[in-house]
């Protein structure tokens, strides 16, 4: 009996030491932006219906849960409906959520709802799409994306593969979208007049729709005998359209774009038959949400705010130099995942296969 009491004491001591060690380890892993104050956080999407959003949502959740002070994480999808997006924001605030990270797809239409939530004392961090207004008056902080940086990255690569200049085709989404305009500014900040843009100013409109992209590219291929580089801010939408070059008896030209598993696999399959098909991608920027979550968590839990205030998408694949990474393809996983994202490929596959 005496012996067993002693053993129990020993076990208790070991357990206590183990628990202490673990908690110390946990503290060491807690990021600096995670403060001690307990809080709840919600991620609100204006439109959650594509694989990019699903990977982004999963990334945002993963980032938020790195902070043990976040006791509850919620998500709402506005389904492309501005009214629903507005009521989602108000409902989350009314439910007592302390911090909101918002993708304001509808732009300035979302500002009144964002402002009212901010004025009621909540932390609210819009990201990626500008809703207007000012930090400190309408919201806590806006975390934008540096699309000019993407344009400049593409431009620098194009200068490397075509030092003498050449013919460029720039494709972006809906007419007049600010992302495309910023990317063009970035491209032009690097490329001189020896690089000729074949598309109508400022870019060929594709609505990021693969069918329209295919139609636009058909017309451009027919019109221009010499296209040296295609620049597009949504690479995977080109996968259906690029075989058009083969139909015209031409090699697929160099491509500067954003990454996607389907695009990487397409390059892997066809680059042997297309000597001019060099590929350069920047990250599709799913991790933009992580920076926004960090700011929101820092503000609500009284942690240390991150240093970065704008998200700069990193360069990802380069088929010419292989740096920072050669072209990636995971044939065993869905085409709609983004290997540039921090979230592991398998977790992404789970996120896009949930439905």
């Amino acid at each position, binding site marked *: 009996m005496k012996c067993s009491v002693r053993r129990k004491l020993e076990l208790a001591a070991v357990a206590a030491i183990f628990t202490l060690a673990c908690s110390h380890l946990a503290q060491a892993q807690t990021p600096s932006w995670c403060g001690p104050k307990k809080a709840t956080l919600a991620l609100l999407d204006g439109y959650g219906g*594509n694989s990019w959003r699903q990977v982004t949502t999963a990334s945002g959740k993963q980032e938020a849960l790195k902070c043990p002070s976040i006791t509850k994480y919620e998500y709402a999808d506005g389904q492309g409906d501005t009214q629903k997006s507005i009521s989602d924001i108000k409902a989350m605030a009314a439910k007592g959520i302390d911090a909101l990270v918002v993708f304001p797809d509808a732009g300035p239409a979302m500002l009144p709802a964002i402002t009212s939530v901010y004025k009621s004392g909540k932390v609210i961090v819009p990201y990626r799409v500008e809703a207007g207004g000012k930090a400190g008056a309408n919201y806590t902080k806006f975390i934008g994306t540096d699309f000019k940086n993407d344009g400049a990255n593409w431009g620098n690569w194009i200068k490397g593969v075509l030092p003498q200049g050449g013919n460029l085709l720039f494709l972006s989404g809906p007419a007049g979208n600010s992302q495309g305009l910023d990317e063009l500014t970035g491209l032009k900040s690097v490329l001189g007049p020896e690089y000729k843009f074949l598309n109508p*100013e400022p870019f060929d409109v594709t609505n990021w729709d*693969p069918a329209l992209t*295919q139609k636009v590219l058909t017309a451009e291929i027919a*019109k221009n005998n010499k296209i040296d580089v295609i620049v597009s801010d949504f690479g995977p939408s080109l996968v259906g359209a690029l075989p058009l070059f083969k139909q015209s008896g031409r090699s697929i030209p160099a491509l500067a774009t954003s990454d996607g598993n389907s695009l990487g696999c397409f390059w892997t399959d066809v680059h042997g038959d297309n000597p001019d098909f060099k590929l350069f991608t920047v990250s599709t920027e799913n991790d933009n949400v992580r920076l926004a979550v960090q700011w929101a968590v820092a503000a609500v839990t009284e942690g240390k705010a991150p240093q970065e205030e704008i998200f700069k998408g990193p360069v990802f694949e380069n088929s010419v130099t292989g740096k920072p990474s050669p072209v990636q393809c995971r044939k065993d996983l869905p085409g*709609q995942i983004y290997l540039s994202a921090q979230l592991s490929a398998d977790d992404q596959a789970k996120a896009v296969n949930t439905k």
Partner: protein
Amino acid sequence: MNQAVDRTMVLPQLQQLFPVPHARSFVTVVISTLALILACLLFAPSSVTWGALSGSLPFAAIIAIVGLGQLLVVQQGGFDLSLAGGVSLAVVIATHYPQGDNALLLPAILIAIACAILAGLINGILVSFFRLNAIVATIGVNALLYGGVFAVSGGVPKTTTTLLAAIAGGQAFGLPNAVYFAFAALLAVSFLLKKSVAGRRFEAIGANPLATRAVGLRVQLHQLLAYVYAQLLYCLAGVLIAGITREPTAFQGDALLLPSVAVVVLGGTSLLGGRGFPISTVIAAFFLNQLSQFALTVGVPYSAQTIIQALALGFGIGVYSVRWTVNVIKQTNTNANGGKNEVLG
């Protein structure tokens, strides 16, 4: 007035040149298309090169197929707004169910066809038996179909199977395969509509449901079936889109609703129902598609492209509105010659 008389003199001669019966709309749409091709040759020759055509013809084929579906409904005096949902549902079933596995493609297509028949039956029953307004009924069914799209896909696109990409996006004998599918759809619709007893009844019911009911035809059944045939054609178009675009969005049908109505109107079919013109509708699909390729090739701004298409549609409607008076005169003449264009089957 003199002009109108002159045209009535000229048009029968034109009809002798084009032996398709009574298809003045056919002449109009062919002349418009030839004029467009001429304009392309003059201002944007590259848009009519073989490379450009082989890239754009699959999309013309898809517009033609959905146009034929819409045509059948319009013939019955209806209007099918569930086209967008029908096409999108076929797209997501054809891509999500197989998950890239070619072996599952056939079951996926069979499921898509079953869904199309179900959607068509719901539309048809609501419109023909419950007498709901076609626009209201099909908007409701469209919402249901989009519910299905979300249930299947969660709104997320998937890459199509290699087999479907080869079938729908490939080429045979120098022509894109989608064109053969459109041609087959045209043959089926034309033959059934113009040469079969059921087709003649179908057309007669569209022209005058009351009279045909008095004759003893099963008006409601034919009206119901129009929506089923239409959904089957939308399903075909959806499966083809899934193959052609490789990574289609889950909302691929949205962009097809307006063109489907446009080609029916440009093809000369009255929105009030009655006779349909399948061949003219298919040529109008080529016309509309080539028009957008023309605008793209000329390099006009996106806003101007949309305006050009709208003007073409306005022009199409305008042409047929102006011909109203001529129609009356022609109709009177033909009837005076024995009324040979009335076939009730």
